[in-house]
């Protein structure tokens, strides 16, 4: 099992996660659990890209998440992770706030780990 598969397994374990997709910012699919991932990949990539465009225009920090709101909380939530986007289709009537908090915490830990290490590396030099 690869690291990315383990990443996906961790995402799947979060309560409220139905389907998911990880795509690179150039639209290439990294991993997913959809039957037909192409359309959702385009949406995740386009949504993430334009959310980051707004971020640059307004001088905001990195975007936290983008939500496509649908009835019964069957929302699509897009997160950024370095040069990747993670798209999650919520399960019907699941708790959106809890899902976002758990995924954000998980991704924050991953990003923070990398930043900490990069800082240490710079300090070494």
């Amino acid at each position, binding site marked *: 099992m690869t690291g990315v598969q383990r990443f996906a397994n961790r995402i799947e374990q979060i309560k409220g*996660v139905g389907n998911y997709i990880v795509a690179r910012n150039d639209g290439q699919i990294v991993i997913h659990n959809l039957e037909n991932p192409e359309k959702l990949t385009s949406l995740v990539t386009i949504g993430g890209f334009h959310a980051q465009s707004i971020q640059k225009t307004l001088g905001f920090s990195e975007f936290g998440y983008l939500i496509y709101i649908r009835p019964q909380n069957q929302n*699509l939530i897009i997160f950024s992770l370095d040069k990747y986007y993670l798209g999650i289709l919520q399960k019907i009537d699941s708790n959106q706030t809890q899902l976002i908090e758990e995924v954000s915490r998980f991704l924050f830990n991953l990003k923070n780990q990398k930043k900490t290490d990069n800082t240490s590396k710079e300090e070494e030099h």
Partner: protein
Amino acid sequence: MQQLIDDLKSIPGVIGAYVFRTNQGVQCSNLPSIFKPERIADITKSLIKIHTAGKQNFADLVEVFINYEESMLFCRQFTPSNYVMAVCDPGMNLGVLAMSLNMALEEVSGRVAAEEASPPEVQEAEVLEQPAAPAPPAAASPPSFEKGPLAKPLEEMSKLLAKILGPMALIVFDDTVAKWAAGRTPTPSDLPELVDSLCREIDDSEKAKRYQELVQSYLPAA
């Protein structure tokens, strides 16, 4: 329209709002002056693209929220050619905003749609597949090495792996340590075996060699 955005702005947490009409631009705005017209135009273009892409995939799309550390953006299409956008505090309750907007729009939507006097745009869209079956049960947590002789070397090895693998390292490291420690109480003399397992996970001979060099000082002397 002005009443609509003024109603929105009166909701605690809403910084300001505006209405955008396709091919005609911003109809009215009560955003703070820091939002220059050219900036509003730029973010509107992006918001419309985000919304349109969503509508092409989800026929039942209601609205879009984007959360940044500083603010939250909101976009809803309330007639075929009219959109209301709002800028809110990041901690804004989405449900409150949506409900308030629903009430404010009840009055406005019908009138604006009649004014437009144009047939509604038919958008072909399909609903993507339904969520899959429930996720498998959570795997057992990795053993804790927060104390004892392995605490420091494992902490450093985990950080060093992140230099090689990036953000995925945390997952790979935890999982490999869990396998390595399964069914025994590992000691520092077992660390080289863990490094070998991690190098196999890296799956790149150059990076694996680099990792071995980096962790050398945390391994027991041969």
